[in-house]
């Protein structure tokens, strides 16, 4: 449904300094002035420092960080709810920073939609009228807007609640309205600012499934902000970890869990259920010539947990990992899998499995 030629989002050398004379200090920050020094000497707060992220079209880009890391500031630069101090934000090849007010308004109407942590629904409007808000702002005819809105209300599982008011719904249901409102816009970019952080854990997992399900069909470019690593690993095709306004690591879930960039990331990763994230490629050894052709196979990309489930049901022995064409690309056994699950960072650090072999 998203524009076929959508070119994704590119953020380049983005700086944000809060304070009355922000632009005067960019050069100093570029040359290494630290956040603490900037605050102490000039009373300015460094929000974001030299952010460079490329988000390809149709992917879920997760931006993760603790509170105060600048993640909410960062997502607001994509639709310019916050103006940057320096840098470029290219959405589909157009620099958002250079847009005038009218262009920006049109850009927000057509290219982006946003879901908010605190839902931000209009309390005096019912579910239907909240959902079609974006279309109403665009000037879409009411009857057409109602059709579209009803489709999305049904799609997020709120059929029958159209005439309820936000205060009559639970948090999870309110956020479904928020999601429907954003999707009804049919914009290629979907911005989700800690969209699920205010929900309780079960509902959060539920809403994550809703999003993953939807994404299979809508293929939007989704920017998802979260402080929860499990959520980040589950949703993100790409993950960027932010601390004190700087990106400290970028990569997919495998990169983050297997090769944390520093102790800060490693600390996060420690608490993660590795079995659900790490894939068998990370621990397999290359297939040898005399491999029994009758042994069990699992496809590449299987998580360790799923692989162990297969092994637990079958006979003892090696399991072949097969590529998309069915050709064996590696071999794993129970010991390797178990080792990968309990290992904290360091031991399994290479994709080629050389360390795993040594286990």
């Amino acid at each position, binding site marked *: 449904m998203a524009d076929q030629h959508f070119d994704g989002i590119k953020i380049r050398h983005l700086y944000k300094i809060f304070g009355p004379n922000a632009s005067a200090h960019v050069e100093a920050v570029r040359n290494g002035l630290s956040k603490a020094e900037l605050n102490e000497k000039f009373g300015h707060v460094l929000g974001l420092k030299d952010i460079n992220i490329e988000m390809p079209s149709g992917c879920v880009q997760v931006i993760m960080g603790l509170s105060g890391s600048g993640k909410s500031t960062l997502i607001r630069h994509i639709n310019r709810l916050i103006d940057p101090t320096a840098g470029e934000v290219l959405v589909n090849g157009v620099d958002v920073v250079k847009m005038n007010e009218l262009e920006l308004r049109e850009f927000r109407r057509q290219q982006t*939609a*946003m879901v*908010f942590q605190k839902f931000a629904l*209009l309390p005096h409007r019912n579910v239907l009228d909240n959902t079609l808000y974006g279309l109403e*702002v*665009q000037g879409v005819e009411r009857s057409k807007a109602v059709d579209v809105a009803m489709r999305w209300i049904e799609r997020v599982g709120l059929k029958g609640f159209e005439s309820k008011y936000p205060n*009559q*719904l639970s948090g999870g249901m309110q956020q479904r309205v928020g999601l429907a409102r954003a999707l009804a816009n049919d914009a290629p970019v979907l911005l989700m600012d800690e969209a699920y952080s205010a929900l309780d854990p079960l509902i959060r997992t539920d809403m994550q499934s809703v999003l993953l399900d939807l994404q299979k069909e809508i293929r939007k470019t989704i920017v998802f902000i979260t402080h929860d690593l499990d959520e980040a690993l589950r949703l993100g095709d790409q993950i960027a970890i932010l601390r004190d306004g700087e990106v400290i690591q970028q990569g997919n879930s495998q990169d983050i869990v297997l090769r944390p960039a520093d102790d800060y990331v490693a600390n996060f990763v420690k608490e993660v259920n590795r079995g659900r994230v790490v894939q068998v490629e990370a621990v397999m050894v290359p297939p040898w010539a005399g491999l029994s052709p009758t042994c069990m196979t699992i496809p590449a990309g299987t998580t360790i947990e799923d692989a162990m489930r297969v092994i637990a049901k079958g006979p003892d022995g090696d399991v072949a990992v097969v590529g998309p064409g069915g050709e064996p690309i590696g071999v794993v056994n129970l010991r390797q899998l178990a080792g990968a699950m309990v290992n904290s960072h360091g031991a399994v650090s290479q994709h080629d499995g050389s360390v795993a072999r040594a286990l």
Partner: protein
Amino acid sequence: MEWFYEFPSMNDDSLRTLKKAIDEGFRTFTRAYGDAIEGFFSPLQHFLIAAERFMTQTPWPIITLIILAIAWGASRSWKIVLGCLVTLLAIGYFDMWDDTMRTISMIFVCTILSIAVGIPIGILMSRSDRLQRLVNPALDVMQTMPSFVYLIPVVMLLGIGKVPGLIAVVIYAIPPMIRLTDLGIRLVDKDVLEAAEAFGSSSWQKLKNVQLPLALPTIMAGINQTIMMALAMVVIASMIGVQGLGQPVLKAIANQYFTLGIFNGLAIVGIAIIFDRVSQAYGQRLQKHREVVHG
């Protein structure tokens, strides 16, 4: 040491000249522009006369029904409707119907005018801190300056009658309208406003879809306050020829007619209570979607 015991004031001659000059200046201004200003306000006069004619010439059972219907429409409460009916019947029975209708028509026009002028000023004020800093002291003056004082220039400009009375009442009653509109819009949830912004709302769309609806309960409180203050002014306005319940009160003060005073005073209280309860109940009904049902 004389300056120590007596404040060294301007000498009498210069003071007199100063006062005379200001008075003379204003008088010249009145002579030059009085007619033009009167012409400017003449639509208001027509509006006032039409409203008063409607209220006094329509048969009383019809007026009563209209008021009760409005009370029901706004409050949806039988208790309030019944209270209105009893008050109106009592007023009529004690032969104060015509004066009451004149007062109600005056209050109605004052309220419409205050809303029409006050809400736009309140909206502008909420958008600019500088304007807020400018307007606030002016509102303070309007509320604290003894109303007799600003009756003088109004009467000099427009003479005695309905329109100067209306202006005096509006000057006194409009500040809460402006202040509460400003406050209501400033208190609108920033998150909701940000969401409207993120969906590309223009500033008119933000005002119409978000700011005004969310500020409406506060604005309603402002309207309620404006009505109450306008009612408080009817006695003073009657000194410059506004007809209604104020005139008998004035007569009672001058002649020490205790009963006449208390009856008319109670009639003012009665319609004040009607206006207050009905407008408050309406304001509360507007808020019903804001109560949190789920935590």
